[in-house]
């Protein structure tokens, strides 16, 4: 296995108050080149904050702890100039709302050309040429004409393709995707997922894909990391997490999906309660108040990361005594 291109150890992010909010409470992540990791979680689970920390895109009032190494460089120590070179050419990001990520007063082609000129010192014409290549690559119809479109002149799916082109314009090694298909219609979402998968394979990109949708994660990911209340509670191969998840939260998420195995008229197995308030986290496992299998020990200490299978770990004390018992409940 090749050397990790993203290596995050003990990442914490706390937004100063009042009240102070601990959005990320100790996240470890590794990603090798060419690997797709899905960060799966609900709103407030810390998945987007984790992603933004990798890009150093968080506001000043966010205090970051832990180490973030990307492409063998310490991201937290970077100065302004180094950071600006790092963003775009080592790591790039696509967002949920491409309409907000583009500047509305410049044509999309010019914005891509500008990135190429700025990062690679290329001539303007060369930048425009790269923009055209990329537009063809992301399969925007009549690419040459579309380069001169303004963001508002494009449909949602096409804007998302254009943003992928922009993100890839300076040949990054790592692509961060923050719910890029959530705002799209179902028939467009699948097109974008397939396009990302194809580009990722061809370019050997490492991708961290943030989503709240297990189905989307299943379509795109090699590995899935499930986040809850600022921590990763389960990590494993896509197959292992979908087929043999060990954490009660993951199990609950899978069981509560409408559709799938559920017949109409039956009741869904909902997870009771709501995600916790991150400014008032209790000690112990954050999922304990909603967990059907909760024990006294869950509320006293943070559960350690325990092995479930090969490359598959979960933070649940139920795995401690008899790992088979909790596996069999899937």
């Amino acid at each position, binding site marked *: 296995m090749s050397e990790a291109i993203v290596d995050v150890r003990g990442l914490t992010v706390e937004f100063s108050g009042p009240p102070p909010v601990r959005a990320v409470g100790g996240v470890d992540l590794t990603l090798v080149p060419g690997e797709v990791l899905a960060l799966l979680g609900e709103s407030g689970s810390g998945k987007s904050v984790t992603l933004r920390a990798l890009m150093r895109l968080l506001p000043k009032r966010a205090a970051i702890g832990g180490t973030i190494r990307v492409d063998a460089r310490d991201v937290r120590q970077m100065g302004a100039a180094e950071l600006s070179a790092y963003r775009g050419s080592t790591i790039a990001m696509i967002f949920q709302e491409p309409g907000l990520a583009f500047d509305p007063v410049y044509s999309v082609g010019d914005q891509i050309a500008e990135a190429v000129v700025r990062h690679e010192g290329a001539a303007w014409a060369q930048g425009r040429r790269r923009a055209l290549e990329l537009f063809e690559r992301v399969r925007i119809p009549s690419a040459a004409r579309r380069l001169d479109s303004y963001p508002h002149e494009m449909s949602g*799916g096409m804007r998302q393709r254009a943003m992928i082109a922009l993100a890839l314009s300076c040949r990054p090694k790592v692509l961060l995707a923050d719910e890029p298909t959530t705002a799209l*219609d179902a028939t467009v979402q699948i097109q974008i997922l397939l396009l990302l998968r194809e580009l990722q394979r061809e370019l050997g990109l490492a991708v961290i894909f943030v989503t709240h949708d297990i189905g989307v994660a*299943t379509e795109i990911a090699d590995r899935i990391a499930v986040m809850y209340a600022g921590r990763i509670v389960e990590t494993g191969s896509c*197959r292992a997490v979908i087929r043999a998840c060990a954490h009660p939260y993951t199990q609950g998420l899978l069981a509560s999906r*409408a559709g799938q195995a559920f017949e109409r008229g039956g*009741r869904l197995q909902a997870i009771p309660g709501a995600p916790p308030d991150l400014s008032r986290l209790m000690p112990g496992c954050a999922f304990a108040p909603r967990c059907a299998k909760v024990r006294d020990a869950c509320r006293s200490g943070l559960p350690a990361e325990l092995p479930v299978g090969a490359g598959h770990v979960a933070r649940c004390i139920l795995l401690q005594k008899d790992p088979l018992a909790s596996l069999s409940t899937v």
Partner: protein
Amino acid sequence: MTLASDSGGARDRGGPAQPLLSVRGLVKHFPVKTGVFGGAGRVVRAVDHIAFEVSKRETLGIVGESGCGKSTTARLLMHIIARDAGEILFDGEKVGARELDLSSYRRQVQMVFQDSHASLNPRLTVEDTVAFGPRVHGVSRSTALRQAHDLLNRVGLEPARFGGRYPHELSGGQRQRVNIARALALQPRLLILDEPVSALDKSVEAQVLNLLLDLKDEFGLTYLFISHDLNVVRYMSDRVMVMYLGKAVEVGPSDVILKDPRHPYTTALLASMPSMDPDNRTEEAPLFGDPPNPIDPPPGCRFHTRCKFAAPVCSAREPGLGADLGDDLVHRVACHMADPSSGHPGAVAAMERA
């Protein structure tokens, strides 16, 4: 419970066979704002001649992508926006005419919106929000509050704990429960649910769907359930209507439509759902491109620009929602391939399959 016994029965006019809601030829075109020099009145054909019925105590699901007109349909039914043409009958009575004035219609039809925050008044506490409708319709404050507390209990919000809170002090799921309680406060017979769970986290979505099913049984309600999520619609609905660019393309029992879809668009919509099987991922996108602009929609069948079965007849002539395809269930599809006399080369093959 007192609220439950009052719904349904007493106000039922036409008996169980008469549809609670029937909609005929519903049309809404929005004019597009043009420049200083005007322009030749271009319009967004948001809803273009839609007809459907909702039986008593059934759930009709409406699915479709953005711009298909599903939310406009909901707003037209609620009279939030005025329709350009068409007729709405509620339990056999024409809405807005002398038979059934708007005020008494709206008492019987309530709506829950997607954005649980924007649809609540930030200055009203939870209990005042739920009591507001009945107060407007002349119920005393103490009675309205008592009913509000009953309803809050029913939707899983303890009145003593949540009654005095303001919307910003609640989570998304809790706010949607308040919206549901408010919709029930006037003891309606029909609830229009416009993407009620789309903004909620998955773990909370299931709670709200369960609640909606329980309330339907308890209060004898009829639902019009609008969503872009086929899984949710399949789970909630007895019948499903699929919309595309302002038109209904397929209507039928949800089990039939979602297992044996006949319209190529319905098929593509189903095939676009993530597979949930890591060993059997989607390899080819069922459709290319985005839905066309509802301003100047394509002529003929509006789907023909993205349809892999498109034939010359598809751009020349618009298919109507045809006859029932099943034996006893009303499954209808607006596709030339379902009509042997259409001249579509695929029509014969489709008939042989059936």
